[in-house]
């Protein structure tokens, strides 16, 4: 063992979490043979549990590794995570209390299910549901990569620890459902807050203060580059990245599940006020990337192998090992690894809910409601196993690229889900057409970027407008849906298919 104290603390924390995961089934016990209990915790989490659950769900281990890594490598642009995670809260406040109410009234447990109820169109719901599952699979895989990075940093070689961790994940997800990540999220977030607070106090003190940290950053990386004439340059790139990411976040199946599992609209509204605490933490954590630059870990011989294998993702683990005593490095790594398990579990559960409600029960003959929970549990195993295979077989860079693409795809569900909470102007088939245009154009533009960049420079009337591809293409998607809805409403209206009522949305 290269780091015995760190490894022991790390393993002890993981052990605690495994025990919690299995005992969670008995917490506020419900009948876990019912999918609303297994997959949505019975919709009874109050303000604080929801705070931990949604926070633990949205701010994932991958974020904790990738955002500081981006700051470490690219500088100021990595800070987009902050405006991004501020903008999610007005959206949360405006949209999701309404979605919760209608979902509660009609028993919907997924976003696509709401869309099916709203338009009476199971094909539109299928498209939305598949988008969610395909966007989630690489996301789970990236959680594994986050975990693999810290396990690797501890000097534990090979894939066996990862396989073990995910077998355990699959097992407690299967037995306890959403209660397991809800309970573990509390431990995870306390550890993460502890780690970040200690890091932003201790490390800058060792390096001579925040001023000294910023002084070590190359001036060109400290700010966004000023745009050239006739272009909005890095400014629009930064702003659209923040806005597009914010619009996409709560459309992911795992975040929708986190929100719908709360006990009511007021819990969601209060969390729109309280959850920004996580954004402060994320902002400080992003600066840990700069601390890694200032500390010079990149040129230390003991970390050369780590940087070679994991690239800039190794910046945070290297800094943790360098700056903290062994036992506290164990706490920090434990926090990151547990931070991978919580969202991974919710992602598997949320995808399983979608598979059961929007694919299996709609398209497989002979399905029965009483078998729902069983189907969902089995599919959660498929998701975890699939993500593991993903990591073991496919190179890491592909997982990163697919996750990038996943963000472009998931935002294409915005018109169908978010607009439908406010209006029934759209036609279901028009939304499906808009979705298809969005998915194809986004994928095409990302392919032109060789799956490496998420910004595309659009040329409009002699101006250059660099934009996050997801935002530009969802705009196109919405325009197509709106324009097609006009004639379709006139000639083949699907309003009669709406099982919800106007008063559900007040």
């Amino acid at each position: 063992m290269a780091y015995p104290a760190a490894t022991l603390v790390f393993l002890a924390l993981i052990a605690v979490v495994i025990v919690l995961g299995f005992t969670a089934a008995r917490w506020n016990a419900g009948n876990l043979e019912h999918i609303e209990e297994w997959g949505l915790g019975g919709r009874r989490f109050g303000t604080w549990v929801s705070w931990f659950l949604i926070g633990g769900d949205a701010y994932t281990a991958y974020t904790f590794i990738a955002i500081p890594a981006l700051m470490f490598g690219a500088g100021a642009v990595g800070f987009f995570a902050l405006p991004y995670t501020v903008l999610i809260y007005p959206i949360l406040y405006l949209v999701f209390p309404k979605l919760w109410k209608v979902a509660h009234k009609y028993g919907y447990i997924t976003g696509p299910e709401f869309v099916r109820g709203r338009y009476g169109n199971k094909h539109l719901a299928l498209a939305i549901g598949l988008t969610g599952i395909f966007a989630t699979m690489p996301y789970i895989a990236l959680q594994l990569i986050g975990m693999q990075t810290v396990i690797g940093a501890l000097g534990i070689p090979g894939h066996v620890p990862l396989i073990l961790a995910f077998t355990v994940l699959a097992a407690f997800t299967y037995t306890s459902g959403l209660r397991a990540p809800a309970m573990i999220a509390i431990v995870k977030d306390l550890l993460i807050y502890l780690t970040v607070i200690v890091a932003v106090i201790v490390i800058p003190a060792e390096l001579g203060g925040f001023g000294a940290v910023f002084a070590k950053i190359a001036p060109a990386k400290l700010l966004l580059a000023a745009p050239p004439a006739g272009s909005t340059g890095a400014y629009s790139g930064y702003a659209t990245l923040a806005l597009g990411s914010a619009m996409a976040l709560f459309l992911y199946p795992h975040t929708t599940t986190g929100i719908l599992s709360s006990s009511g609209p007021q819990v969601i509204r209060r969390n729109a006020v309280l959850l920004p605490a996580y954004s402060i933490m994320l902002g400080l954590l992003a600066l840990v990337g700069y601390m890694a630059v200032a500390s010079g870990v990149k040129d230390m011989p003991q970390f050369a192998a780590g940087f070679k294998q994991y690239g800039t993702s190794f910046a945070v683990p290297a800094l943790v090992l360098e700056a903290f005593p062994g036992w506290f490095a164990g706490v920090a790594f434990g926090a990151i690894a547990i931070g991978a398990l919580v969202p991974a579990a919710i992602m598997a559960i949320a995808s399983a809910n979608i598979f059961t409600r929007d694919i299996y029960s709609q398209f497989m003959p002979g399905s029965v409601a009483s078998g729902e929970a069983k189907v969902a549990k089995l599919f959660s195993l498929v998701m975890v196993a699939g993500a593991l295979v993903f990591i073991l077989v496919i190179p890491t860079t592909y997982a990163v690229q697919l996750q990038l693409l996943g963000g472009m795809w998931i935002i294409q569900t915005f018109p169908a889900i978010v607009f439908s909470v406010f209006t029934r102007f759209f036609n279901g088939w028009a939304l499906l057409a808009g979705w298809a245009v969005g998915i194809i154009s986004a994928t095409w533009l990302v392919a032109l970027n060789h799956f490496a960049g998420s910004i595309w420079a659009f040329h409009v009337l002699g101006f250059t407008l660099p934009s996050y591809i997801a935002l530009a293409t969802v705009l196109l998607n919405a325009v197509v849906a709106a324009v097609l809805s006009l004639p379709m409403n006139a000639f083949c209206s699907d309003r009669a298919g709406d099982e919800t009522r106007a008063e559900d949305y007040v």
Partner: protein
Amino acid sequence: MIKILLLLVFVMVLAVPFYNRLTPALFGFPFFYWFQIALVPVASLLIYIVYRVEHGGEK
């Protein structure tokens, strides 16, 4: 119409040319960084005001 405060959040957060500068610095943080961090509690407060006005009395 108190919801207009939520629009204010978007305006402040997306005003990139305004905050893409180094000075005035605060506690060693260049403006770009401390301003965006400071926006978080401001946004939270604005959402809180909207919440209190619209739904403050509900359980």
